[in-house]
């Protein structure tokens, strides 16, 4: 059963990814992206990484896609600005050829790498979010707190860039 599901999720992901970058209406691109994110979440489920799958849905499909749509509306793309660059076909051919070449090199190599400590069996024993929680709040505490500082930087950065009044605004009122 697994190969069938894998083939489905992988194929739809690839097609949706291609559509995301090639569709001409930006909102359609957003919907294709939604399909892509959903199917990548499916791949995570197949890998028994349920927590990551749920995070993928909540953050990417829930929040980031909304942000993209907001940005699309901010930009207000006019119909005539939705170019399709014909010469990109050449780049795509080149990149495609390079990818096939790389794939052939990679397929020739061994795929099984060394396994880390968090194997499927070990994770299933205590449950997905428990396993992540234990690691995140003991060994990986430092990266976790750095993420906190990183998010703080993102909040302040967004406000500084979007909210700070320019000198022209400042001269008018008493801020």
């Amino acid at each position, binding site marked *: 059963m697994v190969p069938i599901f894998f083939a489905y999720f992988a194929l739809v992901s690839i097609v949706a990814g291609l559509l995301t970058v090639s569709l001409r209406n930006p909102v359609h691109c957003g919907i294709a992206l939604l399909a892509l994110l959903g199917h990548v979440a499916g791949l995570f489920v197949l890998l028994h990484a349920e927590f990551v799958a749920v995070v993928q849905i909540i*953050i990417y499909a829930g929040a980031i896609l909304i942000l993209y749509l907001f940005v699309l509306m901010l930009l207000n793309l006019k119909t005539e600005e939705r170019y399709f660059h014909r010469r990109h076909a050449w780049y795509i051919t080149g990149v495609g050829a390079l990818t096939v070449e790389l794939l052939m090199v990679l397929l020739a190599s061994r795929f099984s790498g060394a396994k880390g400590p968090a194997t499927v069996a070990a994770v299933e024993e205590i449950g997905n979010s428990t396993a992540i929680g234990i690691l995140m709040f003991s060994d990986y505490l430092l990266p976790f707190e750095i993420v906190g500082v990183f998010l703080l930087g993102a*909040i302040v950065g967004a406000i500084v860039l979007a909210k700070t009044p320019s000198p022209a605004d400042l001269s008018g009122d008493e801020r």
Partner: protein
Amino acid sequence: MTPDMVPANYLPIVIFMVVAAGFGIVSIAAGYLVRPSNPYKAKLAPYESGAPVFHDARTNIPMRYYIIAMLFVIFDIETVFIFPWAVIFNQLGLFGLIEMLLFIVILLVGYFYAWKKEALEWD
């Protein structure tokens, strides 16, 4: 549970998705087969008996929406981090509480800053 097995708990979700997709497909297909098809120009207009359309529905929205959406994304990510912490809170005890308090205090700094800079005000 062996790694190669499909997680069987997901069968209800798969069935649910199939039913949801099937409902949409079947109703549209049934409607297409049953309804009379007689299109003309006025009928195809977005508002058949209303005002004529004069421009695109998508216009520029104010920058304010962007800040709100951005803040939503960031606090959404914060919530996701709290989830695994809540699951193992009993094992972590006081130490875990301090860890999470530190994380939340760092983000509260951002919240305080956003509040004071009137980023949450709608003018």
